[in-house]
């Protein structure tokens, strides 16, 4: 087995409950290898978004150990966890990915403005150049000057992808990013995501209901299969 440090995510005996509710997750073992593309699926309410929150370090595990990119999140202080996420993780939401009061360009550059270490990874440390390059690849150059609420859903998702990918994060997390866009657009979007992750050597954790996508990934995981809590 590869040493822990070479795996992007390792869950060991992780349990989680929301402060207000009953237990949502109880996962004995869940791993993502470095550079691996994992497809995670499960019915609505099964705890997929919750699991992503644990990986991202937004939600602290109630018990057990969550290791992300070689660091045990439970050992980090909350602010360190936030920084860890900001610097090393790119996150894509299902919908409403963009901050309405920032321009397209500012949205993409935001992770690098929030975290100097993320900015430091850009070639020449230039946010403008990195934004321009990503925009080129994702075919959103003409959108850069536009207001966020003037974009179509598909355009918004590509802008969000650019923001998740800027500064080559080592782990990209996507929570149903394609559920609101049509099939044709969805396929091209996933291709883009794959090529960018491959280029940066990022691992990818991709959540979706749509099982037809699973074949394209290195591995497909069913959350109910690994979660001992049954909804």
């Amino acid at each position, binding site marked *: 087995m590869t040493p822990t440090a070479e795996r992007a995510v390792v869950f060991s005996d992780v349990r989680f409950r929301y402060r207000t509710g009953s237990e949502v997750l109880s996962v004995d073992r869940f791993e993502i290898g470095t550079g691996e593309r994992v497809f995670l699926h499960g019915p609505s309410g099964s705890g997929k978004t919750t699991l992503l929150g644990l990986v991202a370090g937004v939600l602290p595990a109630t018990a057990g150990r969550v290791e992300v990119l070689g660091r045990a999140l439970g050992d980090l202080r909350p602010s360190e966890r936030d920084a*860890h996420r900001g610097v090393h993780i790119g996150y894509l939401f299902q919908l*409403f990915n963009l901050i309405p009061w920032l321009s397209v360009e500012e949205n993409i550059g935001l992770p690098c403005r929030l975290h100097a270490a993320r900015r430091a990874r850009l070639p020449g440390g230039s946010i403008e150049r990195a934004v321009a390059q990503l925009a080129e690849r994702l075919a959103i150059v003409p959108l850069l000057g536009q207001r966020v609420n003037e974009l179509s859903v598909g355009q918004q998702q590509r802008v969000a992808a650019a923001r998740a990918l800027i500064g080559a994060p080592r782990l990209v997390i996507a929570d149903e990013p394609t559920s609101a866009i049509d099939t044709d657009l969805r396929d091209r979007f996933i291709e883009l995501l794959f090529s960018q992750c491959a280029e940066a050597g990022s691992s990818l954790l991709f959540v979706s209901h749509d099982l037809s996508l699973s074949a394209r990934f290195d591995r497909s995981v069913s959350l109910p299969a690994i979660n001992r809590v049954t909804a």
Partner: protein
Amino acid sequence: MLTPTLALRSLANRRLATSLTVASIALSVALLVGVEAVRRGVREGFAGTIRNTDLIVGARGGSQQLLLSSVFGIGSPAGSMTWKTYERWSKHAAIAWTIPISLGDSYRGFRLIGTTPEFFERYRFRDDGRITLASGRLLAGESDLVIGSMVAERLGLRLDTAIAVTHGLRGEGIADHDHHLFTVVGILAPTLTPVDRSVFVTLEGITAMHEDPEEEHEEDRANRKDAAGAPQAHSHDAEQESITAFLAGTQNRFESLGLQREMNTDVTEPLTAILPAVALTELWNSIAYAEDGAQIISGAVLLVGLLGMLVALYSTLEERRREMAILRSLGAGPRRIASLLVFESGVLSAAGAVAGMAAAYAVIIAGRGVAEQRFGVWIQVAAPGTLEWAYLIGVVVAGLLVGLLPAWRAYRNALADGLTVRL
């Protein structure tokens, strides 16, 4: 530096709501600062009613009574002093000048001041303001009469009008001294002091006026003795034998206090001497409770403004939960999210405070002309004092505190929501 930038962008995105919130805070600050500035302006205007005069001296009585009767023409004087006493004090080594005043008569509700022409030279108000003539000339002969601007306006008096003066302070026509007619020789320019409501004649004029048949005079005097409970100010007979009060300037300002004591303790004739500046402040303070009411109301308005800001910030929280989740996903800590909201409220209150202050001063500067004409109130425009600055800082601090509540809510949400994007 990121938090301010983000907060400002967020506010700019909600321009209408932002400007309404700023406007409501500005309004309450303007009211608070405005009330304070007007209060201070009126007080300074009031304190400037009489300047340059170091002492006012009258018959033994209350100092407020002396001030009110001699400067404001309100109430009756405590009594009179003999001309001899006046002359004795005017020759005192520490005294530079004195001006006698004789009160006790009125003309159609406006009080009559018998004095010397020097009064107009010496009298100062506010910042070296002098009495000037609007038309005509100052006093010279015993039939001359000079009127203040308000007297001229209200009674529609013009130069060269001949008038008879009322004996006593109230009413008209009951006991007019119509055997001695005065002629209006001068009309004074507005001063926004009690001078505007006064009618001036010479001391000789006062004497001449009272040189009428003895019996009427006696009867009169008896009446007024009853009413005022004290001998009246002007029991002149043929000769000028008494006056009501006198204004005095000292050789050296610092001697005023010593002189005051000397006069107050003199046994030859019991006198009361007051320092006008001190007495004016005392008088103001005794009526100042009225201002407290205004202060309380404007403070309450400010509170409402701040609560409005709280409501405005708080109501955006739900719709901004999404945005908070995105920021969280990008590695912004719950603290950063809370500080964004606190910064927003800080900006709103600071903008409101500055705008309110500017608005208050703009209105005062633009409106003081109206206050002057309509109400005869002088409002001194002074640079913002410590109290105004304290208000400003207080508003910003209060704004930050008000922002803490939604910020705390956002902090809690950020921890509880995870990455669930709520709609």
